[in-house]
């Protein structure tokens, strides 16, 4: 059975009755059953829920025909949720032993919306525990392997979500991005990953990591899929007071854009191969009729230092609720990385250090925001690498937390500023490892990011691929 790699093709096949939703669930669950023991991308498989939703969807297609897809825009679309998303009746662990038996009594807004739009829940994805990590190796349930090369990390913290798409375990998946946790694994697994504007997608029912930075997004294999899912997940839900409807509609143009290339993102510490691929993408955008200009964002180099004050501070507060009383196990079940971040957060917030660290970080955050805002007065988009290197080896950075933290050096800017960023795959290198870049835009400019990425993929004749797992 040939199962398509995009939402549009899948729904076409369902319309033509080449496939049923039950066939799709059969296919994906069989692949998970066969390959997940090696890849470890999925922590919980929800077969019963998946088949019941698939049968319901098949019935709708039979009764309503093509109209079913108008009423339910994501009908038949299989999804794997990062295990940060609460799923009513389906175990939700944050990949931590603290929550290993936790079954939520309600679902996240995003889960509810996707299910209401016709999605089929296949299961829950592995991740760095509590979304703390850049490689997937901080999971309490073992690391996820990169389907393109099992000796390498898939990127984190939404490791299993991105690996699930590269391994063809699902059509779409969800993730959270507090400092690159969607964009990095998307980049390392050769798929698209959207970190939306802070305040565009509800955080309700998603386990909180660092509340002023957490962005709720998703993965897909083509731009149109990522856009279609965003149409469903975005918007006010009445449960997250940071959601906004105040923004002006964005002027969409896909050509004639002025794109900034920040020199600080292309300097020392960046692998040559990554730099070359980003510069090649810049050249391609130029050929497409856009203007590329060098810009300077000198304070963004402090982004990761700011992040490693603000984030642990917020983590220490958010994780203080895990006391093992109402649900979950006791605090002795926290893994090393959670302990490090909780303690670091307590340290920077504690008496005598608050002004020197936490207040200082909040001020430098303002400086970075001002600098980026000023850049967007001149350019439409900012083009940058996602990470300083190609996917690295499993185990390479696990004993050196600071080295691991620096993996996200190019990710911090978007989270600190609350702006959207899209990780876009551009192809593969000679070793068949995925290459790509990120494009950032002003707040609520997601449509502009989609338009630019879509044009780029058309221009290079991009075809989505999944890894052959051997």
């Amino acid at each position: 059975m040939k199962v398509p790699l995009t939402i549009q093709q899948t729904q076409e096949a369902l319309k033509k009755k080449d496939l049923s939703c039950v066939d799709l669930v059969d296919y994906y669950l069989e692949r998970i059953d066969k390959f997940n023991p090696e890849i470890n991308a999925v922590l919980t498989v929800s077969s019963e829920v998946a088949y019941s939703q698939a049968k319901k969807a098949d019935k709708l297609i039979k009764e309503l025909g093509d109209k079913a897809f108008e009423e339910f825009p994501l009908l038949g679309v299989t999804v794997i949720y990062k295990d940060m998303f609460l799923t009513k009746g389906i175990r939700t662990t944050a990949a931590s032993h603290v929550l290993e038996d936790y079954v939520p009594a309600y679902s996240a807004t995003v889960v509810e919306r996707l299910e209401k739009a016709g999605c089929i829940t296949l299961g829950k994805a592995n991740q760095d525990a509590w979304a703390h990590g850049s490689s997937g190796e901080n999971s309490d349930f073992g690391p996820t392997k990169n389907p393109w090369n099992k000796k390498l990390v898939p990127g984190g913290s939404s490791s299993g979500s991105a690996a699930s798409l590269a391994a063809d375990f699902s059509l779409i998946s969800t993730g959270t991005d507090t400092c690159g946790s969607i964009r990095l694994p998307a980049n390392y697994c050769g798929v698209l990953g959207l970190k939306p504007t802070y305040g565009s997608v509800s955080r309700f029912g998603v386990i909180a990591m660092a509340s002023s930075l957490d962005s709720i997004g998703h993965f897909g294999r083509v731009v149109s899929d990522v856009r279609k899912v965003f149409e469903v997940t975005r918007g006010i839900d009445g449960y997250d007071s940071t959601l906004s409807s105040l923004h002006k509609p964005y002027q969409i143009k896909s050509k004639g854009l002025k794109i900034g290339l920040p020199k600080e993102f292309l300097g020392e510490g960046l692998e040559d191969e990554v730099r070359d691929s980003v510069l090649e993408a810049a050249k391609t955008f130029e050929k497409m009729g856009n203007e590329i200009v060098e810009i300077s964002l000198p304070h963004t180099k402090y982004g990761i230092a700011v992040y490693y004050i603000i984030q642990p501070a917020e983590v220490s507060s958010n994780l203080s609720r895990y006391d093992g009383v109402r649900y979950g196990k006791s605090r002795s079940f926290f893994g090393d990385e959670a302990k490090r971040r909780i303690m670091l957060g307590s340290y920077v917030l504690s008496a005598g250090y608050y002004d020197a660290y936490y207040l200082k970080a909040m001020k430098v955050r303002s400086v970075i925001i001002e600098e980026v805002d000023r850049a967007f007065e001149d350019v439409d988009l900012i083009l940058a690498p996602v990470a300083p290197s190609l996917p690295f080896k499993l185990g390479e950075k696990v004993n050196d937390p600071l080295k691991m933290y620096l993996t996200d050096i190019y990710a911090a800017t978007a989270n600190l500023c609350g702006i959207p960023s899209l990780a876009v795959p551009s192809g593969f290198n000679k070793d068949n490892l995925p290459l790509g870049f990120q494009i950032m835009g002003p707040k609520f400019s997601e449509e502009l990011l989609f338009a630019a990425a879509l044009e780029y993929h058309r221009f290079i004749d991009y075809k989505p691929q999944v890894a052959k797992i051997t």
Partner: protein
Amino acid sequence: MASLTDNDIKHVAKLSRLDLSLSEVKKFKKQLSSVVDFIKQLSEVDTSKVEPTSQTTGLNNIWRNDEVSSGLSEEEVFFSTDNQYAGYFKVKALLSERGEK
């Protein structure tokens, strides 16, 4: 020299309600010291005329409508715990008799 001492680690562990073994204290002292040394670089930035940013939405005091809505049922609330008795969560005693430890 590590910027954090054993006592610093024990102090923040206590603030964080985490029990650490001696070997953990040694390990975390080394790892967290390197992170603290790294974040100290922010002192290079002049922020004397800058206001702090705590969030990026520009929104203030967003309330829902003052309407009664239903919450979780008692069964749903207690679904994930064994620590319950007669509709209450059981917790360790917070107060004790004078002189009792």
